C-alpha cells in the first residue's frame, strides 16, 4: 500500500518532468494527463475520493482535451526554437532542488513536529461541501461564468473593424 503510494508520488513527478521536457506538445499534454492520473490515485489513497474523481474527469479529461484541441488548432508546429540547454541542465537543477527540499523538510520536521488534529472532521462530504462551503459554490458559478464569457469574448466575431 505504502509502496504503491510512493510509486504514485514518484509517478506524478516523473510524468510532470516528462511533460515539461517533451519537445512534442502532444506527448507533453499526454504526460500531464498521466501525472493527473497518478495524482488521482494519490487522492484516493488519501481518502479523498471525490477529489480524485474530479481530478481524473476534469483535469485528466477535460483539460487534456482542451490542450490537445489547442495543439491541433495551432498545428503544434511551433515547438521549434525551444533551447536544448534547458532540457540538458534540468537534471542538475532538479537534483539540487531535491536536496534542498529534503533538507528544508527535515529541518521543519525537527522544528515543528507534525501532529494530527485532536478532533478530526466528522460528517459526510456532502455536508462539508454543500453546507460549509456554500459561499464557494456561488464563487464557482462566478468562475464558470467568467471562464465561459471570457472564451466567448475571445472567440467572438467582431461587429466592426476597429
Amino acid at each position, binding site marked *: 500500500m505504502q509502496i504503491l503510494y510512493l510509486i504514485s508520488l514518484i509517478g506524478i513527478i516523473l510524468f510532470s518532468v516528462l511533460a515539461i521536457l517533451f519537445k512534442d506538445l502532444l506527448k507533453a499534454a499526454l504526460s500531464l494527463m498521466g501525472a493527473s492520473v497518478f495524482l488521482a490515485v494519490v487522492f484516493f489513497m488519501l481518502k479523498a475520493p471525490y477529489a480524485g474523481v474530479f481530478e481524473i474527469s476534469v483535469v485528466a479529461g477535460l483539460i487534456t482535451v482542451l490542450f490537445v484541441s489547442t495543439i491541433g488548432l495551432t498545428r503544434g508546429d511551433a515547438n521549434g526554437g525551444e533551447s536544448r540547454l534547458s532540457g540538458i541542465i534540468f537534471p542538475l537543477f532538479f537534483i539540487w532542488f531535491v536536496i534542498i527540499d529534503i533538507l528544508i523538510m527535515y529541518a521543519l520536521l525537527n522544528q515543528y513536529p507534525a501532529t494530527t488534529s485532536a478532533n478530526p472532521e466528522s460528517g459526510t462530504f456532502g455536508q462539508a461541501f454543500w453546507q460549509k462551503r456554500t459561499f464557494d459554490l456561488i464563487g464557482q458559478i462566478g468562475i464558470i461564468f467568467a471562464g465561459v464569457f471570457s*472564451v466567448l469574448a475571445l472567440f467572438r466575431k467582431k461587429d466592426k473593424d476597429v
Partner: protein
Amino acid sequence: MVVLFIFIPFILAAILPLIEKVSKRFLPDLLTNAGILFLLVYTMTFGYKLVATNTGIRQLEWFAQPLNITFALDGFSLFMLFAIYLLSFGVTLFSIDYMEHYGSKGIFYALFMIMVGGMSGLVLATDLFTIYVFLEVSAISSYGLVAYGLKHDELEASFKYLMLSAVATAFLLLGIGLIFGITGSLKLGDIADKFSAHDLKFVIGICTGFFIFGFGLKAALVPFHSWLPDAHPSAPAPISAMLSGLLIKVSGVYALTRIFLNVFGLTPALSTILMYLGIVSILVGAIIALGQTDFKRMLAYSSISQVGYIILGFGAGTPLAIMGALFHILNHALAKGLLFLNSGSVEHATGTRELDKMGGLAKKMPITAATTVVGSLSVAGVPPLNGFWSKLLIIIGLLQAKAYGFAFIAVLASIITLWYYIIIQRRAFFGKLKDTLKDVKEVPFWMALSTVLIALVCIIIGVSFWVFIAKWITPAANILEMGAKYARIFLRI
C-alpha cells in the same frame, strides 16, 4: 439583503448575453447602469444603515433557516463596496458610448458584472478560501476583459497577466493550505484566534511571504508589478479604469490589509516589509512613469506608484496612516479611473495613445482636458482635490510612526508624480494644436458626462473632505485599528 451585492451582478451577467440577442445596445446599457446605480444607492442607504447600527458579521438566512453563507459587512467592506460601485457607475456610463465599436456589448457587460460581483464577494468574504475564489472570479473575467480588443497587444498583455497571476495565486493557495493545516480552519476569526494562541512565527513567516507574493502581485507591488504596465493600458479604457482603479485595490490591497491587519495582526516585521514594498513601489513606479510616451502606460506606472502609497500607509499602521491609506484607495480609484477614461476619450477622438502625436487637445476637447487636469492634480496630491488629503494623512501617519525617511521619500515622489502628470498635460492638452489634429471632436455625451461626474466627485470630496472622512473613512479605519482583535471578536462565525 446583503447577498444582493453578489447576486445582482451575477444574475445580470447571466442574462445579459441573452438579452443581447433581443436588443443589441439599449437594454444592456440600461440594465448594467441601472444595476450598478441600484447597488451604489443600496450601499449608501441600506448598507450604511446596517453597518451603522451594528458592527460585524451577517449571516444569510434562507426561509428563516440560517445558511452557511456569512458576510463580513463592516465599515471597511462597506467602504470598499462604495468605492467599487461608485467608480463602476462612472465606468458603465462611459462604456455606453465607448464600447460601441468593440462589439458584443452583452458579453462585455457580462464580464464586467462578473468582475464587479467577484470584487463584491471578495470584500464580503469571511473565509480565506472564499477570498481566494472570488479573487479568481474577478481575475478570470479581467483576463477576458484585458484581451477584449483581440489585437496583438491586448493578447500579449493578457497572456502575461494570466501566467503571472496564475503562479501568484498558486502560491497564495499554498499559503492558505498551510494555514488551514496549522489552524484547522479557514474562518478569519478562527485563524486570528489560533495565531494569537500559538507560537507559529516560522510558518506565519512563510505564509506571509506567500500572501505578499499573491496579493502583492494582484496589487502590483514592485517587484511583482511587471504585468500591470502591460495589462492596464491594453484593456479598453473603461476596463483600464476598473483594473487600475479597483481591481488592484480590492483583490490586492483590500485582501492584504484585511488579512494582515485584521487577522495576522501587524507585527513590526510585517510593517517594515510592507513599508519597504510601498516605498520601492512608489519610487520605481514614479521614476519609470517619467519616461513613458504612451498615455495609458504612464498612467499604469502611476498606479504602481500610488498603490505604493496605500501600502505604505497601511504598513505604517498608525491610525492616521490607515485612514489616509483607506482614503487614498477611494481617491486614487476615482482619479485614476477618471484619467484612464480620459485616455480612452483621447484615443477615441484621435486614434492614438502616443503622447508625441497629440498636442493642444484642450482647444478641441475642453471637457476632457479639464477633467484630466482634475484627475492629474488629484493623483499628484495637489490641494484642494481629494488626493491631497489622503496623501497628507498618510504622511502625517508616517511621521507619527517616526518613519521620517519613508515620509520624506513619499513627499519627494509626489513631486515626481506631478512631474509626469504635467508631462501628459504638456504633450497632450496644454500647448499648441497640431495640424494633424484639426478635425478632432469632443467625445460623445455619455463619455463626457461620466468624466465630468467623476471629476465633480473628486472636487466635492476634496472640498468637503471632513464630511467624507467622518462618514466613510473613520468607521473603516476603526475596524482596521482594532487589528487582530477585531477578527477574534467579530469574525467568529
